[in-house]
């Protein structure tokens, strides 16, 4: 029985496995299938100041080894989350409140509402599926620094995770910008902007035309980006992108991640996260690894 616990910004997680934002709601539905207190934490559906309706349907499509989605941040708003879901979720596991805004002020306001109430705030500056805000903040280092600093100024107690977009020129530059803005942790990757076409109709399948690509097929690119980010900054990194089994998670840990998030795999198998946790334990035992945290950054380059 290996020690699976990890420490992230001074907060102890039971294990390094966290369902990724947008694939898990606020955890209630999955909790009908398994007790989600087995998880290291839950990254919530992206929260905005006011409720949002999201994009028209279809919001999802498939291509070999990947899926595309453009939900467009449908959510009940941060107040409804605080009122209806937070207490319940906190009683289960660590809460990473994923937040998105249209303006820098939005981000600061949402963070102020969540400060001290959640275990982490995860700043979503990388949603590819909304017209304003979202990814607009996550492309250039200057805006990343600005929005991170504004969020950080609102957070007196809660550590700040900045979630980076892969649709950028330089991951190291953007990771450093988040660090300079005051981020306590970095998570990546969000989805890659993509398109899938219905050739009979000669139209994109997703109503939004483009969507975020995720799933097994993006994993090698995500591992490379996590490696780059982890070696650019001295703050912890949460890695994600196509993780579907324990061995995938180990790759991300070796590349430099302290914890991992699992998204698309929750759709292929609702028990993906518990399976990865069990698998990590078995893998560590089989490889003489006493604590999973030994794996973080233990990569040996050729």
């Amino acid at each position, binding site marked *: 029985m290996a020690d699976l616990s990890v420490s992230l910004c001074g907060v102890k997680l039971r294990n390094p496995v966290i369902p990724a934002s947008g694939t898990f709601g606020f955890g209630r539905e*999955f909790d009908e299938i398994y007790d989600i207190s087995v998880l290291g934490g839950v990254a919530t559906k992206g929260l905005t100041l006011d409720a949002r309706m*999201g994009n028209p*349907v279809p919001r999802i499509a*498939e291509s*070999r*080894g990947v899926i595309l989605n453009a939900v467009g941040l449908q959510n009940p708003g941060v107040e409804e989350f605080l009122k209806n879901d937070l207490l319940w979720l906190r009683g289960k596991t660590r809460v990473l409140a994923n937040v998105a805004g249209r303006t820098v002020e939005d981000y600061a306001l949402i963070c102020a509402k969540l400060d001290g109430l959640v275990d982490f705030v995860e700043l979503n500056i990388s949603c590819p599926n909304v017209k304003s805000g979202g990814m607009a903040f996550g492309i250039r280092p200057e805006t990343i620094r600005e929005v991170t600093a504004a969020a950080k100024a609102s957070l007196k107690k809660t550590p700040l995770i900045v979630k980076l977009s892969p649709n950028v020129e330089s991951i190291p530059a953007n990771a450093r910008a988040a660090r300079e803005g005051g981020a306590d942790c970095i998570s990546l990757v969000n989805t890659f902007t993509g398109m899938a076409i219905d050739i009979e109709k000669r139209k994109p399948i997703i109503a939004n035309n483009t969507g975020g690509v995720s799933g097994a097929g993006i994993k090698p690119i995500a591992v490379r980006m996590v490696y780059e980010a982890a070696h650019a900054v001295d703050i912890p990194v949460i890695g994600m992108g196509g993780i579907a089994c324990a061995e995938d998670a180990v790759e991300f840990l070796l590349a430099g991640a302290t914890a991992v998030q699992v998204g698309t795999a*929750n*759709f292929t198998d609702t028990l993906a996260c518990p399976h990865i946790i069990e698998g990590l334990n078995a893998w560590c035992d089989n490889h003489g690894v006493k604590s999973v945290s030994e794996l973080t950054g233990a990569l040996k380059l050729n």
Partner: protein
Amino acid sequence: MREITATVLENKKIAENIWSLTFSAGDDIRIRCGQFAMLGVGGQQLLRRPIAVCKAEGERVTVCYQLKGEGTRRLAKEYKAGETISVLLPLGNGFYVKDEEQRVAVVGGGVGIFPLISVIREYAGKKHISAYMGFRNKRALCMEYEMQRSDKLVIATDDGSVGYHGTAVQAFMEDLEGERPDVVLACGPTPMLRALKNAMTGKGIPVYVSLEERMGCGIGACLVCVCDRTDGKHARVCKDGPVFEIGEVIL
């Protein structure tokens, strides 16, 4: 709601482009009529396919599907008897008929007939059921023996090759004056449901429809499969539905 590794008992073609897959859930499973299952097709397809349950008897569950794309073609080709398949079920709310509703009309088109067969199986002998089932043509016709459990059966084909020449909705509306049902349950392509909604407006008979949408998780977490409600909000087809009162949703 359970995540299971089911064993395929039978997977066969039953009509043009239509296949029927029966699996064993391992032990007895209670499934309401109109509920659905998510079936993992494996390979490079990461999303499971939401498919209505057609029959459920003890641990045996049958779903019927149309060959449409890579996923359903894989389902037909790779899952022979004895293979295992990842299944999440039962999902969604399903159809309910109230105690006071004695006369039930079911109106189905295309693959929409399969969840209605589960309705017929659940209520046959307990309610008076009139079934109006629409097919493209004779080659698409299947599961007649199941539909014949209803008290009255009208089969409609678009080309008139069997039964009533026209749509299931047209056949149903022609009968409506003579035999007024207490409730109507329907499933089929959106244009068919729209036609039914228009025809039934102001008739004072409750109509429930089962909707279809591209899904992600199938359990209400990912908010991919929403539909528009008439009150301006969204509903999740997988969790709040797939069955809705027809006036509750915009078709």
